[in-house]
């Protein structure tokens, strides 16, 4: 599955703006991403398996805050980060 990587996380993907990862749920996909790019998951998901406040996921075009969201039928996961701070 195609995963769109936001600019702040591309230091993990050798600057690739999209990568491939697999999983039946968003959580599985994020673990697969972390296997490929160690450390990337913890920057997005905290130790309580909660999405960090400024990270947003779209699965097949639908926004979700559920890390267990199914990826069935989705062709793409988009990771976005909020534009905030100073």
């Amino acid at each position: 599955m195609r995963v769109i990587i936001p600019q702040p996380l591309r230091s993990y993907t050798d600057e690739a703006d999209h990568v491939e990862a697999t999983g039946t749920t968003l959580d599985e996909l994020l673990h697969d991403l972390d296997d490929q790019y160690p450390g990337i998951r913890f920057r997005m998901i905290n130790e309580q398996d909660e999405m960090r406040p400024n990270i947003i996921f779209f699965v097949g075009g639908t926004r979700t805050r559920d890390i267990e969201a199914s990826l069935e039928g989705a062709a793409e996961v988009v990771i976005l980060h909020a534009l905030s701070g100073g």
Partner: protein
Amino acid sequence: MSTEGVPLKSGNVLIVSTRKGIFFLQADPDRRNWELSGPVFLGHIVNHAVLDPRNGQTMIAAAVTGHLGPTVFRSEDAGRTWIEARQPPAFDKAKAGDTPRVVGHTFWLAPGHPSEPGVWFAGTSPQALWTSTDDGRSWASMRGFNDHPDYGKRTEDPQAGTPDGPVLHSILIDPRNSNHMYLGLSGGGVYETTDHGESWTPLNHGMATTSSELNIQDAETMEVAYGDLAWQEMGPQHDPHCVQMHPIDPNVLYQQNHCGIYRLERPGTTWDRIGSNMPAEVGDIGFVMGLHPRDVDVCWVFPMDGTDVWPRTSPDGRPAVFKTRNAGTSWERQDSGLPERGWYTVKRQALSVDEEDSVGVYFGTTSGEVWGSIDEGQSWSCLIAHLPEIYAVEAAVIG
């Protein structure tokens, strides 16, 4: 994740951690001309970056961004290249019924005892203590502190309102005994261990508290919460900002507290408020302090305005370092070269001293200036300006 750093020369370096990355200042041998390198990790909020004095090469940096979770970076070649820790500090996933804890940022880094190469300690917000035994690659919870039954009484509620969150700081290791350590909690007080962190005891006698204006009802509430008068011994009303152990006499501790400047000589257990001897119009509120590497009676502080809503700027907007030569019996103002007026804060990690014959004293400001003195504070010059907000300055020596 790996990142290119900067090549640095052997010798003295100031490691300047800022809200927007790490900068390095290196001097010529007489310390009169300083060269700036960096930034490394531009855009990352770096609370602390430390060079390991045991090898002069390993650096560890605590970083977070506005969007991404907290992490730790490490360099094995004195800052030339950096790689992310495999396992940065992170709490266990909460079991049912437990309060979930999430590391907001790593705040303090401390190399371990010289007899324990590769050992490091870290303090975070929320307040927790971590250790690494593999030179910062992975970090483990020190459960004797983090999971103690009194954790909630010793530490400050992350929602309590301390700016940037309550922090665990000033992890001090006795050079005579690796099992003997101190730490500071802001708020929460000073704690001591003699078993390498398995158990901790409060060391707060004599310290004024942030709740000194408690009314009777508040006191009763605290006694109910803490039992008897235990709240006077521990709890978030104690607020050490910076604690230091003297390198040549580890029995001597100095402390810049929210409520004054203190000194304690062990095995004594009652802090002496040496800040009472500061000029009344200046007071003894501040964040930072620095100790002379060879004279146990000398320390420097940078007082700030703790009146009204706590502006955290120099009293009357007149920046000055104050130095004692006699363990706090008297203090002298050292402001030659500093601006007549300046409205900035020097944060608790942002003053450092070197070990040269004429000791260099350096501090970084929230307005992005690094000031230095190579005559033990008698005169000051601005080494660099226009950096981002400075969180920490570490004087170190690259091997």
